[in-house]
């Protein structure tokens, strides 16, 4: 790291740190959805990245529609898109659970294959509908630009917005999981599905809504994603690997672990990317991760209760 003064290094860390915040936000939202689904029914949703892309394309579609028909609405459409991304991706998740996944719960390997197949189908549909080229929505003015914190450090506004959005969604998920009666049913089913049925919980209904919720959150991640990069048919695939890393590293059972792990992975990559190339940064992060997992195979935060 020679050639940089301490002041410059500090600024680099801060700025790369802030640009890492967008990545952190997207990864956290993705990992939340993935972990909720995995925790509830043991399904690893290989199509999770495509549900994110659904959210991104929804945002793009909203942007084009607004531009052509209600240009005056442009400053506000993005907020509406986030809600719509959640609803569209959630509805598609609900459908996927109903048509495909619920028939395979007792066969974990088959769900892996089935959701992988689903991801391919979805990718091809994106290609047919939106074309192979990457698209991006026109972001409203207020999302662009940066806030100059000091003369060396600029904080991107979109990063702050996405972070705020992520905090709201995460708090919402926490509330739902830990304070609502619906969340109680989810947690009961996660711990003992058979017994949950025997205390009167309709576990299949819980499954369907949990899957829809997880996919809906991926949709929100997709809307957030449009602020940092453009969307193509394979966008989902690019992010799913990082998301898996976050979930495995955090320990699938712990929401706190997911947050901590999304933060460290996103920051490590973002800060390293400044000094070495992007792919090297990824390799390096992965290596460290593997090393840590060798010593803590259950992930960063495993829950400590005797069974």
């Amino acid at each position: 790291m020679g050639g940089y003064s301490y002041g410059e290094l500090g600024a680099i860390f801060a700025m790369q740190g802030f640009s890492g915040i967008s990545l952190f936000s997207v990864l956290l939202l993705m990992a939340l959805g993935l972990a909720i689904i995995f925790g509830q029914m043991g399904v690893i949703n290989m199509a999770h990245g495509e549900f994110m892309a659904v959210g991104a394309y929804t945002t793009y579609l909203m942007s084009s529609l607004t531009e052509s028909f209600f240009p005056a609405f442009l400053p506000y459409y993005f907020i509406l898109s986030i809600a719509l991304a959640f609803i569209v991706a959630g509805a598609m998740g609900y459908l996927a659970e109903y048509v495909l996944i619920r028939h395979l719960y007792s066969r974990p390997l088959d769900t892996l294959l089935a959701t992988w197949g689903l991801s391919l189908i979805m990718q091809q549909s994106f290609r047919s509908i939106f074309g192979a080229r990457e698209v991006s929505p026109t972001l409203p003015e207020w999302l662009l630009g940066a806030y100059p914190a000091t003369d060396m450090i600029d904080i991107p506004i979109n990063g702050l917005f996405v972070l705020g959005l992520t905090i709201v969604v995460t708090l919402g998920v926490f509330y739902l999981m830990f304070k609502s009666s619906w969340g109680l049913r989810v947690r009961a089913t996660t711990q003992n599905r058979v017994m949950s049925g025997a205390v009167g919980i309709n576990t299949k209904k819980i499954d369907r809504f949990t899957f829809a919720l997880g996919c809906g959150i991926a949709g929100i991640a997709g809307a957030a994603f449009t602020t940092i990069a453009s969307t193509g048919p394979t966008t989902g695939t690019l992010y799913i690997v990082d998301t898996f890393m976050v979930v495995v590293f955090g320990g699938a059972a712990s929401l706190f672990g997911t947050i901590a792990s999304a933060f460290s992975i996103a920051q490590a990559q973002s800060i390293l990317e400044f000094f070495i190339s992007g792919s090297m940064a990824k390799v390096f992060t992965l290596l460290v991760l593997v090393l840590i997992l060798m010593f803590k195979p259950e992930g960063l935060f495993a829950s400590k209760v005797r069974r």
Partner: protein
Amino acid sequence: MLDVANLKVSYGQSEVIHGLNFTAKKNETLAVMGRNGMGKTTLFKSLIGVLPLSGGSIHIDGTDISKCESYQRVENGVAYVPQGRMIFPNLTVQENIETGMGVSKLKAIPDDIYALFPVLHEMRHRKGGNLSGGQQQQLAIARALVTNPKVLLLDEPTEGIQPSIIKDIANVLNEIKKMRDITIIVSEQVLSFTMAVADRIIVIDKGNFIHEDLRDDVDTDKIKGYLSV
């Protein structure tokens, strides 16, 4: 109240319950006694719908529930306290009880539940997994009771529990009978416990009922004979 006709249950090809017939009336407590591996748990699991029937029917108040899933049977008034208790270890005591309240639409845990099990009130914020076996048994009973059942199924509630607590559990069951109009079906190997709670005793052997008696007419030596190997 509960009508079971020609009930058959199999694991794969092997039939374990061979066409049982019995009824249990309102306010009656029925004990099913039998040695290890005679099919008590299998019978109870099929009643609550954890295991499918391979034949026969179950009616509750005239409604056929034999095709229903577990949660629908709970909605129809069956509650289940399994062998080994099966409380949710990572939920608090209070949350464990609340899992049963979705069916009965209760908003808060009724006072009479905590009156029956004062220790659960004391420990309501602890994780269920950190309770002792006897406390977990009380928790499992409380969780079943808040569904407001017509029929309460208890599978070996005394297993692994010390004698003084066994007496407590017998008192609790008798208390529940006084408080509610409820049918209790309990499987047991401890005769003294059965004699303290049951109105009628049935002995199960290799998936068949081989003996039945009202509690007041029971020949304890004969039942002991059935229960010893």
